[in-house]
């Protein structure tokens, strides 16, 4: 930092010696970061490096144990986010912070409501939102319920929330994780505009090329402390950044030679899911016909006549912006959600089977949200091993749960999958996200499935664990496993899949060959910008 830059303007944010300890973890250790006003400052670091913690400290959500924070040159001390908001800081969180059952408008004004005579002045709020939306190209209908919005819209609401408060310093914690490239580009356009207006942006991402595309300066955090800080110009490649982050080389998800066989492993035909409750189809009417009729009636369909085959040794990737029917597809296959159409494992039709029987027949399931669908956080690891395998060896002996066998098998998983834990009696919540995910992968593989649903298998998992999970998927595929892979990480999708199908508004619209597709083109299909090559 040279003397003359200091002379021109005081840094927008200056973090000095920030240390934050959690029980057993030092999340931040003596961190120092200087963010110049009117710039986009990226912070990178692997999972658990302490980025979110740092930002929460800057936003007043957590108190640092040590260190000082200066905003626009003034030293500040925040007791709550409202203090941070007061000095012009706004934060978009890593996970959406929206109240589903409130409208967009209510979510935006919450905490900074305009009032007239004690009542909420929605007129003024609406005007101001329209104005902001116009100025920054962030268009959303203020009267819709947030629960009806897609992820892109939600992200826009989050940013509007921050702008609405007149923030001059924006913190964006992994805002692009759930966006497709086109949306990312839109977002970056917005950010550049904001920057042009003199706003400061602190931007966190795991996607290094994105970082290189938008940032003016970059700080790298490793294991809770700053290991490098430099202007964009000094960075030569993503690889260089990555090595700073992890101290070693980047893994790639590419699969080499194809292991696809011609033996059919799994088939879905004409899968259709109604939005407003399932109504059984009349007897004798083929599903296609019934689906057509529903369409004609204007019934909203979450899944619209979806068909595909997966062969043994094949990974079928489903690309799509979140909310286009992926969750429904998985749930329909698992039997959690009622659907029309046929689902067959091998030769066996299982469309009328309950979830349990499907699992027993050999479907493995890595859910998209491990905390919601995958784990009993307040139960031990071995009990989590039993989950989903209550009816099978080794977890079960007659009507009993075979505790000893379950423990032993859990120890095997811990060893084989490198789950870092003090023991199998440890509660699942004491494990880090990546280790929890490895446990789930190990569990689902241990049932020797013939078909595996892997939804976002490496989401929120750091590079090390990521590579391990990819390896396991590849090995299983080589052994003849059929995999349905759903991922928002397009590199992962392209790298692992043998075939990619694009889902858009509940329909499979394109079938692509991963060997000659770029993430950008894929994003085009996903957003509907490029018309699909399939008719259903």
């Amino acid at each position, binding site marked *: 930092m040279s003397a003359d830059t200091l002379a021109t303007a005081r840094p927008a944010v200056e973090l000095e010696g920030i240390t934050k300890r959690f029980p057993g973890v030092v999340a931040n250790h003596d961190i120092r970061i200087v963010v110049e006003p009117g710039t986009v400052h990226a912070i990178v670091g692997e999972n658990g490096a302490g980025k979110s913690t740092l930002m*929460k400290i800057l*936003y*007043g*959500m*957590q108190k640092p144990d040590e260190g000082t924070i200066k905003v626009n040159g003034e030293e500040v001390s925040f007791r*709550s*986010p*409202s*203090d*941070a*908001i007061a000095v012009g800081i706004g*934060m978009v*969180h890593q*996970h959406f*912070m*929206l*109240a*589903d*059952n*409130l409208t967009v408008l*209510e*979510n935006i*004004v*919450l*905490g*900074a*409501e305009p*009032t007239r005579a*004690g*009542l*909420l002045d929605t007129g003024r709020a609406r005007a101001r939102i329209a104005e902001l939306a116009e100025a920054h190209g962030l268009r959303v209908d203020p009267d819709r319920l947030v629960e009806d919005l897609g992820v892109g819209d939600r992200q826009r609401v989050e940013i509007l*929330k921050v702008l609405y*408060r007149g923030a001059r310093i924006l913190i964006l914690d992994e805002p692009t994780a759930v966006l497709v490239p086109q949306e990312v580009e839109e977002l970056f356009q917005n950010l550049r505009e904001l920057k042009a207006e003199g706003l400061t942006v602190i931007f966190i991402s795991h996607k290094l090329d994105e970082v290189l595309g938008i940032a003016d300066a970059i700080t790298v955090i490793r294991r809770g402390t700053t290991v490098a800080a430099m202007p964009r110009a000094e960075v030569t490649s993503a690889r260089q950044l990555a090595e700073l982050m992890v101290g070693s080389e980047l893994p790639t998800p590419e699969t080499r030679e194809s292991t696809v066989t011609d033996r059919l492993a799994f088939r879905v035909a004409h899968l259709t899911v109604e939005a407003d409750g399932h*109504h*059984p*189809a*009349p007897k004798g*009417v083929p599903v296609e016909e*019934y689906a057509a*009729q*529903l369409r*004609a*009636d204007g*019934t909203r369909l979450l899944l619209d006549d979806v068909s595909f085959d997966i062969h043994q040794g094949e990974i079928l990737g489903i690309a799509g912006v979140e909310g286009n029917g992926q969750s429904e597809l998985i749930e329909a296959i698992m039997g959690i959600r009622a659907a029309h159409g046929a689902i067959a494992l091998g030769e066996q039709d299982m469309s009328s089977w309950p979830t349990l029987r499907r699992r027993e027949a050999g479907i493995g399931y890595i859910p998209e949200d491990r905390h919601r669908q995958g784990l009993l956080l307040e139960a031990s690891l071995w009990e989590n091993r039993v989950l989903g395998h209550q009816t099978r060896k080794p977890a079960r002996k007659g009507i009993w749960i075979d505790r000893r066998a379950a423990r032993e098998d859990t120890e095997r998983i811990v060893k084989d999958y490198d789950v870092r834990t003090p023991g199998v009696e440890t509660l699942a919540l004491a494990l880090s996200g990546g280790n929890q995910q490895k446990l789930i992968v190990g569990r689902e593989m241990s049932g020797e499935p013939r078909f595996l649903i892997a939804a976002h298998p490496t989401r929120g998992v750091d590079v090390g664990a990521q590579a391990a999970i990819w390896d396991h998927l590849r090995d299983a595929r080589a052994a003849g496993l059929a995999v349905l892979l759903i991922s928002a990480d397009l590199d992962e999708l392209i790298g692992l899949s043998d075939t990619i199908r694009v889902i858009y508004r509940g329909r499979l619209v394109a079938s692509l060959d991963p060997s000659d597709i770029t993430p950008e083109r894929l994003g085009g299909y996903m957003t509907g910008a490029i018309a699909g090559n399939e008719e259903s």
Partner: protein
Amino acid sequence: MTRVRKYHLTLIGVAALLLVVSLVRVITGHNDITSSGMFSAALLLAVPIGLAGLGGLWAERAGVVNIGLEGMMVLGTWSAGWAGYQWGPWAALVAGLLAGAIGGLIHAVATISFGVDHIISGVAINLLGPGVTRFLSEVLYKEGTTASVAGAGITTSPPLSSPPPTPSLPLLSDGPDLLGKLESTHWFLLSDLAGLLRGLTHEVNLLLVLAVLLLPLTYAVLWRTSFGLRLRSAGENPWAAESLGVNVYRIKYIAVVISGAFAGLGGVFLVFFANKYVEGQTQGRGFIGLATMIFGNWRPGGLAAGAALFGYADGLQLRSKEAVVSFFLFGAVLLLAYLVIQIRRLTAPDRPADLVAGASRQYVRMAFATLGMIVLFWLWLTVDRLPDEFVYITPHVLTLLVLLVASQRLRMPKADGVRYRRGEQH
């Protein structure tokens, strides 16, 4: 747009119901089912339930389940009796409110500050309320005390030192009492309407007016003010609220304390009604209130409807045990209406696909409805008077029946009952 349609639909529904009720009255000759006395009793019985329900609404909208309403209501009745005999109805009002609020505060401390399971804390308060009040009675109302001389016993307080004022609407329900005259003609529909209006306006106690006003007030505060928005956000996603600088703890505290105060107010109402505290006079109304709140989909309007239904049915079984039988006819007519609508839908040329698909199911349902209609009709023809034991439970059975029909549409606040701790996101 949808709101307007919903509102109209509600109006049409109410009108249709009134029509059917009026018809049933004329056929059965049970004039009491729409008499002003009936509606006034229904209102009186509905109000304490509704107040408890409102209490539940405030707490649950802020994300705290309050099953301790009953205990808080008990605290309210005792305190109102105690303050009322010494300093009159206004003091009773304040004391009841405060005592309920203290109950709420205990619940708040346990659930919000200590993160205790909401149900557990509520159950403890339901134990605590009757225990503490009985204890206080044993101490303060024992023989030889001035209270005892004034008429207190171990189970009752002395009467209020002066009765709460009871205004009634001039002209319509008092003096010339035009509505009363119209009602006594027993004309179809007109008398029923008159009965309804007169029942709601004749000799209304001030607290009752206040209680009824609390419904729109609650709506206004929760849905039209910034405080209400924050409160609801605390029940939907407290972490989002926290991240925007809302002090979620404080909001929840306020909500739960108000919740207790409302339950206490329900207790005050009972004391005003009886003119004194009587041990056990809440009679489980806290629980019923909670039920009406769920029944009402966590909304003031629905809650009012639930409380009104319960109050009406309770009033009817208390006043005219024979008239309860006419509800068989009422049910039969409703089922008939349902059948007519279904047949028209099924025979319509452009019937929707889901009907085509679910036709067999539909037929089964209609067969059941037909059967039910016939049974109800037969019951109405043959039964003169049910054994009392079956009459007492009219309100409970009705509540269950309505829930069976309407329950699927309920949606509770998303973070209701969730333990919230600052900085610990789920």
